[in-house]
C-alpha cells in the first residue's frame, strides 16, 4: 500500500513537473535563506565565544615601579571583582614579542637603542555573559590605581558587536518565521493548483469507492518529497556558497586563526525535517479545504 502511494506520488510529481518544480524551487530558496541565517549565527556566536575567552585588559605601568610595588599592585588588582588571572609582561618581554610579530619589518628595530615600551600587566576577566558590561568599570578601577599609567581594552567594540548580533538573531527569528509561513502558503497553493487540475480524477476515484485517505495520502507524500528535495537543493547550494566564501574570508581576515564551520549533522537533519513538515502542512491546508467540498 505504502509503495503504491509512493509510486503514485512520484508519478504525480512527474505529471505536474512545472508546478512541482516551482514549489521545490520556492522551498529550496526559503531553506537557503533561512539556513544561511542559521549558519551566520552559528559562526558568529563561535567567534564571539572565542573572543570572550580572551577578554582582557592591558594595564601599562608607570616606569618607576619596583618589585615590591609590583607585588602590591598585583594583589590590588587580583582583589577586584571579575578578575581571573594576571600576567606581568616586562618591557623587555614586550619588545621581544613585538619583534617576533614583526620579523619581516625587523629593519624598524635596527636603530632602536632604548626600549620605548612600558611594563604591563595583562588581566583576564572571568568568563561570563555580562563581561561586556563590566569591562568598562573594571578598567576604570584599574586605571585609578596610582601605579597605573594607562589601560587599554581594545575589545570594547566586541561587546557592541555582540549586541548587534543578538539584534540580528532576533531579526533572523522573525524572518525565519515569515519564510516558514510564506513557504507553507506557497506549497499549499501549488498543491491546490495540482488538486484543482486533477479534480476530475479525484471525483472519479471517489465514485469508484476510494476513501478520502486513499486520495489524500499520495498528496501528503508529494508534499513530503517536495519538502525533502527543496531542503536538499537549498542546503547543497548553501554548502557550495559556504566553501567559496569561507575560504576567502578565512584568508582575508583571520589568517587561519579561525575556522568557519558548516552546519552540524543534527542541524542539517533538523532543517530537512522542518522542510518536510512545511511540505506536509502546505498539503494539509489545501486538502482540508478541497475535501470539504
Amino acid at each position, binding site marked *: 500500500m505504502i509503495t503504491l502511494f509512493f509510486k503514485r506520488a512520484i508519478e504525480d510529481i512527474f505529471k505536474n513537473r512545472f508546478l512541482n518544480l516551482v514549489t521545490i524551487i520556492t522551498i529550496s530558496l526559503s531553506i537557503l535563506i533561512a539556513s544561511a541565517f542559521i549558519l551566520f549565527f552559528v559562526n558568529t556566536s563561535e567567534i564571539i565565544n572565542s573572543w570572550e575567552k580572551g577578554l582582557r585588559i592591558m594595564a601599562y605601568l608607570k616606569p618607576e615601579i619596583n618589585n615590591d610595588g609590583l607585588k602590591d599592585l598585583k594583589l590590588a588588582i587580583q582583589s577586584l571583582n571579575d578578575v581571573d588571572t594576571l600576567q606581568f609582561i616586562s618591557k623587555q618581554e614586550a619588545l621581544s614579542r613585538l619583534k617576533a610579530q614583526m620579523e619581516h619589518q625587523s629593519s624598524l628595530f635596527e636603530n632602536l637603542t632604548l626600549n620605548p615600551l612600558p611594563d604591563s600587566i595583562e588581566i583576564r576577566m572571568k568568563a561570563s555573559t555580562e563581561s561586556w558590561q563590566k569591562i568598562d568599570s573594571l578598567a576604570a578601577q584599574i586605571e585609578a590605581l596610582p601605579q597605573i599609567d594607562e589601560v587599554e581594552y581594545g575589545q570594547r567594540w566586541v561587546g557592541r558587536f555582540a549586541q548587534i548580533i543578538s539584534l540580528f538573531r532576533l531579526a533572523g527569528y522573525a524572518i525565519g518565521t515569515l519564510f516558514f509561513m510564506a513557504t507553507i502558503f506557497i506549497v499549499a497553493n501549488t498543491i491546490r493548483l495540482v488538486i484543482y487540475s486533477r479534480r476530475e*480524477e479525484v471525483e472519479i*476515484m*471517489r*465514485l*469508484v*469507492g476510494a476513501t*478520502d485517505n486513499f486520495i489524500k495520502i499520495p498528496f501528503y507524500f508529494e508534499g513530503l518529497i517536495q519538502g525533502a528535495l527543496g531542503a536538499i537543493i537549498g542546503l547543497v547550494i548553501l554548502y557550495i556558497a559556504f566553501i567559496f566564501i569561507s575560504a576567502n574570508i578565512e584568508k582575508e581576515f583571520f589568517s587561519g586563526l579561525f575556522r568557519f564551520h558548516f552546519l552540524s549533522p543534527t542541524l542539517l537533519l533538523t532543517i530537512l525535517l522542518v522542510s518536510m513538515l512545511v511540505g506536509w502542512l502546505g498539503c494539509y491546508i489545501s486538502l482540508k479545504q478541497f475535501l470539504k467540498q
Partner: protein
Amino acid sequence: MIDAPEKTFIIRMFHVHHNYGPKKALIDITLDIAKNEFVFISGPSGAGKTTLLKLLYLGEPVSEGQVLIDGINLARIPRKRIPQLRRKFGIIFQDYKLIPTKSVYDNVALVLEAAGAKNRLIQKKVKSVLRLVGMEDRLKSFPPSLSGGEQQRIAVARAIIGDPKIILADEPTGSLDEESAEVILELLRGVLIRGATVIIATHDKALMRKTGGCVLHLEQGRLEASRFIEKQYDNAIF
C-alpha cells in the same frame, strides 16, 4: 431481521423526487428491485435515467423521499461510509469517466487499489478482466488514444472487476457495434449469474428484447410503467 422483505429487495425507492434547481428531473418515483434481478430503465433522452442511477450511488443527493440500498437508508449514511456504499456498485458511466492521465491498467486497477487489495491479486484480476472485454493487449494505452467503443469496454472492465453486488450500466452499449454489444451483454449476464443485480439504463429497444427482463419506463421524470419483456430468441445471437 426487523424488516425481512427489505432483505430481498436490494434497492427500494419511496416517493423520490429530484430537482436540479427549478428543473424537476425525477418526480415521485417508487420502486423496488429484488436481488439478482436484471432490470432495464428505459425512456427517451432527458427522461431522467441517468439521474435515477445517480441517486443510488449518491452521485446526487435525494431532494425528497427515501432511497434504501441493501437495507441502508441513504439519507442517514455518514460521510465516512460513502466509499463503502460505492464499493457495492460497479458503475458503467454514460460518459465512461476514465481517468485520461492513467493507463488502461491503472484505470481498472484503481477499484481494487481503493479497496485495499494486494498488488499480486490486482495484477491477476486486471489482466483477466481485460481479457474478458478483449482489451488485454491495450493495458499500457491511455484512454484518449482509444476509440469510444474501446473506452466503453474499459469502463465495463472497471465496473465488474470488484465483483460488486449491483451493476449500474448507463447506455453500456451506446458506442458499440452489434457484435461488441453482444459481448458486453454476455459479460453482464455473467455477473448476474454470479449473484449480482444488474440495472441497465438504455433507450435501445432491440437490446431489451434481446435479453428480456424487467423494464422500468421513465417519461419526463415519471415512472410510467413497469413490465416484463420476454426474451425474444429470433434475433438472439447466442
